[in-house]
């Protein structure tokens, strides 16, 4: 067999394969019929053989390139990943994410300690000596924080009873939507950064967790020490359930990534990263979902002028919901 007769014999098969391939690659719904799939597989193996033959006989790189290209595309179509199922977003949040978090809970607890311990410590220290707050945060930030929770005392309790749901939507409620949007953008960006910087041996994540913990603790200690405790707690207690937990979850995601490099076990560091990265990104996605809920609560509920008691009751429901969700969602049978 020489090159010319080879080309003459094999070209129809290549063209047939290419037409099947084009259909297999198309995003449209009906792809290949069952017998076409087996034909595809046969042609693909024959094509691989042809490529090997062209190479071993050195029949020129034009034809080799053409076949290589065809095999590359065929390889992608043949061995490619499964398409996403419909409803997988729901399953992700009801089953996959909480399960994955529980499987990796060691990282969650470490992240929680890295976040909550400095937060509690700075809160306690600033509460006992508010002037120290200026050593953590610039005065302008503290001033803004103080103004935010100062409010006019008249507005809250007195109007609270009169404010029906529809009423609050008129002027005040529309500003809420702007805030909700801002929180989604701002907080989720921090969470994603917290996750991504975990690549640097987890150091970036640890830094983000510590600094956020210290700052939040400082603000809390300072604002309460200035006598705005009720307004402050009434505001933050509801959405903090989802928000703070989500920060810890994204921290856990970052730590998973850092751990993959530091302790790859029997895998190479690269393989370990790839394997654990898949887990980490799902945790980060789950955290993003939780931050979305937190932003909704923060924008539409937290600022409502309602009695403190109502806020606390609702907040404890939110906190229980978070614990129940992360602790128990997705236990039992697999979905479907």
């Amino acid at each position, binding site marked *: 067999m020489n*090159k010319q007769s080879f080309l003459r014999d094999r070209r129809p098969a290549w063209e047939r394969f290419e037409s099947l391939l084009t259909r297999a690659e198309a995003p449209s719904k009906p792809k290949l019929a069952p017998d076409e799939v087996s034909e595809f597989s046969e042609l693909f193996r024959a094509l691989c053989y042809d490529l090997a033959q062209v190479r071993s006989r050195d029949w020129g790189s034009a034809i080799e*390139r*053409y076949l290589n290209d065809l095999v*590359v595309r065929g390889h992608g179509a043949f061995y490619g990943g499964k398409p996403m199922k419909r409803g997988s977003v729901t399953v992700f949040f009801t089953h996959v994410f909480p399960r994955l978090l529980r499987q990796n809970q060691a990282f969650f607890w470490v992240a929680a300690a890295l976040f909550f311990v400095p937060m509690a410590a700075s809160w306690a220290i600033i509460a006992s000596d508010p002037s120290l707050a200026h050593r953590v945060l610039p005065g302008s930030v503290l001033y803004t924080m103080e103004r935010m929770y100062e409010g006019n005392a008249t507005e809250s309790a007195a109007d609270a009873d009169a404010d029906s749901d529809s009423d609050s939507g008129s002027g005040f409620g529309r500003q809420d939507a*702007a805030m909700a949007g801002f929180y989604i*953008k701002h907080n989720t960006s921090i969470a994603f950064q917290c996750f*991504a910087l*975990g690549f640097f041996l987890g150091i970036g994540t640890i830094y983000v967790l510590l600094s956020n913990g210290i700052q939040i603790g400082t603000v809390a200690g300072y604002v309460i020490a200035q006598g705005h405790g009720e307004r402050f707690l009434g505001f933050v207690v509801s959405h903090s359930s989802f928000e703070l937990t989500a920060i810890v979850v994204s921290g856990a995601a970052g730590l998973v990534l850092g751990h993959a490099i530091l302790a790859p076990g029997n895998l190479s560091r690269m393989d370990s990263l790839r394997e654990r990265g898949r887990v980490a990104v799902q945790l980060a996605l789950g955290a993003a979902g939780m931050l979305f809920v937190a932003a909704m609560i923060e924008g539409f509920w937290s600022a409502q002028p309602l009695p403190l008691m109502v806020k606390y009751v609702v907040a404890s429901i939110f906190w229980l919901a978070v614990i129940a969700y992360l602790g128990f969602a997705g236990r039992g049978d697999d979905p479907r």
Partner: protein
Amino acid sequence: MQPRDDRSFEPLSNRTYLETPENVRLAFRLAGPGTRLAAYLVDFALRVVIFYAMAIAASTLLVPVTGTGLSTGLFYVLAFVLEWGYGCFFETWWNGQTPGKRLFGLRVIKTEGYSIGFYDAMLRNLLRAADFFPLLYAAGFIAAASTSRMQRIGDMVAGTMVIRERRPELKGELAGLANYEPFSMNEFEHNYRPAEKTLEAIEALFRRKLDLAPARLDEIAMILAEPIGRRLTSFDQRKFAREQPAEFLFRVLRSSSADREADVTGSSAA
């Protein structure tokens, strides 16, 4: 597992190879930092345009209907989605391409050679935050420079690489080749015929004929003309090969052009 990487023989190559279950070694051309930067800038510009379009739409169309609050909130959410979701969205639904990558013929694929999925796209785009560190993608550049598949951090974790997609190249006829007088087979010893790869090299030189100064053309041609010329039987012809190497090589090319025409039509089916 990572597929085995045998680039150790080609330390400066921009190719990477992958052995398939069919025992065939596939070659991929990797995209270098320059093309990737260009694609990134196109995507960046597009994002800026979308961002301002959104801002104008929100302030002129939405505000009168919903008031500033809701439209500002929506704007923030869309800005967030644009910032973090742009790459992920396009790379998932356009099979590894963003508009910028499509423009420059780049595609993100798994290092195993097949197309990427949602989590891959998500990973490599979220990890841009690490690649960007400390500024202007410095970490990503170092990572890409030091991995054999030019992977930035996001690519390493997602197990992806950015390749330059081959477009089947349809080269035109070799204009003017017919003016060269072909050799006949018996002018070479043992019916010598240059290998396909050699002929392709000559063809590449022929296409650059007008771009090169004649002296330089001969200088390059000498590299091949010398060993091929030695196969000639007649002394005069050998002398001709030494003195006019470019002319000689093009005549060799012309000699095998009958074969080559069949070859070119064969590959142009691509």
